């Protein structure tokens, strides 16, 4: 608060000084900032509307001639295999979401409502899971649960003397587990946010009427948090059906396809973008529908306790059970963090990972190779951070502008601009990439494979995160201060630049990081758009997964994680420990 006040003071003084000389008069209410507004609208049309329109149009166009046709749809759904892949995705989404719920809800309850030991530690582990890219998790689990060579199977065989171990990552359940393990933080975030708002008085009432801790949780606490849990489950479902890398690494050897791997094949050689566009429609449709449902559920105002004034919130004393739930949390953490990272680190420092933990197997060679010898690995890291940084900067500027327009109702239909900013949330990364490809790969722009198309696609993909944060921040500012600027003759742009932005610099830094961190590891849209000189680290890691060398891959994946740590540190210093695990982070 102190800091904020000081910033405000400084900003106002700065304005007073710079705005003192009278500004030239404006003509008929025409404000130079209008140019900016028009620019922002144009940018949103370019980033959001045009790729979407192109996606839909392309799905109805014949290859080369561009005539109207329904043939693409016939080709996309004409084979039982292709339709089957659609259903596989739905099953995968449902399975992963339910399992993730079972992992996340007890943890969220334990952390936010009880006296479970090590609550901060558990939060930290959830964060560690959250920042592990799904493809890194998938590779780690191939090391752990490969049917013959996986460590879990080898240990099992060693202990029991059995012929073979019980785990097979290359299976439908295997894929469900891997996806659930790395998407449960979404449900955790939603659920713990809701549980923290449930007042203890409600639970006390149940206790007084004779219900024990367990029954209270089941009858009072959980139902109150249910909308949030359902919301989280839906997000998890959508995440699971939109993932590309984990299915590509696991489903192909397991001999089944999902929508995203099938889309990738339509994109392969010979490339059939039109068919891919037609095939992407159900994915898009399901996502739009479920996001609407999710919004309806989580916005329902029926649960008065979740919106009212804060009652007292005491942690529930679980007695001996607190160790049980702590044990469960450690089990989840073992599966999502401890075991995967132990074996990733082993592979990253091994000459050959299959040889295990032996001193003569230890080497720094893999890191040396990816940093200094490999032709493109180091550059791919640099590309990812460069494109991610550019996308985050663009995203923050655009969403700040739009949030400001919307909050101050500066143009007619301002709300529509806000809608455009959050609309990409319903477009899965692969689908967005196909839209960008359809819109900007052909001449005149011919952006395919350029840094520009990747930056623009990343910007669009993470606009919703930027917007949610920027609009929350803007709403916290009283318009008086900008009015002061206007009274002193400053333009709106001056107000935005010298008052609003400085006041919100922490929030904007937060929004920047919340875009930047996922953008540096974004794969599903990059895989369709990169070129030989614009490979990003996620694509590099994905490529390495089929190049026969998990040691290099593990080294590169760990490097990416290590480079993320300073970002997290800055974010936590500026915004508090949980800045990644808040609702507006997702």
């Amino acid at each position, binding site marked *: 608060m102190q800091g904020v006040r000081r910033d405000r003071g400084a900003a106002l003084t700065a304005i007073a000084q710079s705005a003192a000389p009278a500004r030239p008069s404006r003509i008929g209410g025409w404000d130079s900032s209008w140019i900016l507004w028009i620019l922002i609208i144009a940018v949103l049309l370019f980033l959001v509307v045009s790729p979407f329109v192109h996606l839909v149009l392309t799905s109805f166009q014949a290859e080369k001639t561009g005539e109207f046709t329904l043939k693409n749809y016939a080709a996309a759904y004409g084979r039982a295999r292709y339709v089957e892949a659609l259903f596989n995705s739905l099953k995968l989404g449902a399975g992963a979401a339910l399992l993730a719920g079972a992992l996340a809800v007890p943890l969220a309850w334990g952390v936010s409502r009880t006296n479970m030991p090590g609550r901060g530690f558990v939060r930290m582990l959830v964060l560690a899971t959250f920042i592990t890219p799904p493809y890194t998790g998938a590779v780690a689990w191939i090391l752990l649960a490969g049917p013959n060579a996986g460590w879990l199977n080898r240990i099992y065989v060693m202990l029991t003397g059995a012929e073979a171990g019980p785990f097979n990552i290359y299976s439908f359940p295997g894929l469900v587990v891997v996806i659930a393990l790395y998407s449960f933080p979404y449900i955790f975030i939603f659920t713990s946010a809701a549980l923290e708002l449930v007042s203890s008085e409600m639970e006390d009432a149940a206790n007084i009427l004779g219900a024990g801790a367990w029954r209270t949780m089941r009858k009072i606490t959980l139902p109150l948090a249910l909308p949030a849990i359902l919301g989280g489950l839906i997000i998890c479902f959508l995440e699971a059906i939109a993932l590309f890398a984990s299915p590509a690494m696991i489903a192909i050897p397991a001999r089944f396809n999902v929508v995203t791997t099938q889309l990738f094949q339509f994109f392969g050689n010979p490339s059939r973008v039109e068919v891919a566009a037609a095939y992407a429609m159900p994915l898009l449709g399901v996502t739009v529908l479920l996001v609407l449902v999710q919004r309806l559920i989580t916005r329902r105002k029926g649960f008065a306790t979740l919106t009212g004034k804060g009652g007292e919130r005491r942690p529930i004393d679980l007695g001996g059970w607190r160790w049980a739930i702590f044990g469960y949390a450690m089990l989840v953490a073992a599966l999502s963090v401890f075991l995967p990272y132990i074996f990733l680190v082993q592979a990253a420092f091994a000459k050959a990972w299959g040889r295990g933990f032996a001193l003569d197997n230890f080497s720094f060679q893999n890191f040396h190779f990816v940093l200094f010898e490999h032709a493109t690995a180091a550059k791919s890291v640099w590309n990812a951070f460069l494109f991610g940084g550019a996308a985050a900067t663009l995203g923050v500027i655009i969403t700040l502008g739009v949030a400001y327009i919307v909050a101050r109702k500066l143009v007619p239909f301002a709300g529509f601009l806000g809608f455009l900013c959050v609309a990409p949330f319903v477009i899965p990364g692969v689908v967005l990439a196909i839209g960008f490809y359809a819109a900007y790969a052909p001449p005149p722009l011919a952006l395919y494979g350029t840094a520009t198309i990747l930056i623009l696609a990343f910007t669009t993909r993470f606009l919703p995160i930027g917007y949610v944060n920027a609009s929350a921040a803007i709403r916290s500012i009283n318009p008086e201060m900008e009015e002061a600027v206007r009274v002193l003759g400053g333009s709106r742009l001056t107000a935005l630049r010298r008052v609003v932005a400085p006041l919100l610099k922490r929030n904007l830094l937060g929004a920047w990081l919340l875009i930047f961190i996922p953008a540096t590891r974004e794969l599903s849209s990059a895989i369709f758009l990169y070129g030989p000189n614009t490979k990003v680290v996620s694509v590099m890691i994905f490529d390495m997964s*089929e190049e026969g060398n998990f040691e290099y891959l593990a080294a590169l994946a760990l490097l990416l994680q290590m480079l993320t740590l300073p970002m997290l540190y800055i974010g936590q210093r500026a915004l508090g420990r949980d800045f990644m695990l808040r609702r507006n982070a997702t």
Partner: protein
Amino acid sequence: MLSYNTSKVKAEEAPKSWKDLLDPKWKGKVSTGHPAFSGYVGTWVYSMKKQFGWKYFEQLEKNKPQIGRSINDTVTALNAGERQVAAGADGSTLFSAARGNPLAVNYPTDGSILIVAPSAIVKGTKHPNAAKLFMEFLMTPEASEVNVKHFGIPIRPEVQGAKGTQPIDKIKVFRPTIAELDKGIPEAIEDWRDTFGN
């Protein structure tokens, strides 16, 4: 060509021909790539189909191969001990073997698949002479030596091949034409999906 994990399979037991991969003793032990993800694998699948008919793959399916994407996925599967024998590529396998991994290759007696990397000059290029010089360079012993460093097969007889490779005139090769592959691979991919399910 055929590759195998030397710590699990003795040299004399390792498969010597493509047909050997069909032996029931390799059930659950074979690794391949996927023709829809790899041109190498596509060429291999087409060549097998041409030589032995599609029944080759119907029989291979009985051995439940683990299907990766790239042909180099076979290297991963062998290194890990996930699988023991594979339809792989000599370059990436021998490169990995040189790093200390337990791998070796066999040139199949019924014909290694020769995959030629064609080079060409773009019509209307700004620097046609530089391009021609580069094409000349590709034919030199020097270029072959670079190739050998990456475990490719040298096209010049005076350049010694890398450890584990065979000179090209000593091995039996099977070489489909570009036109055959252009038409044949997409068909083979569909056949593959019908047999292997993805």
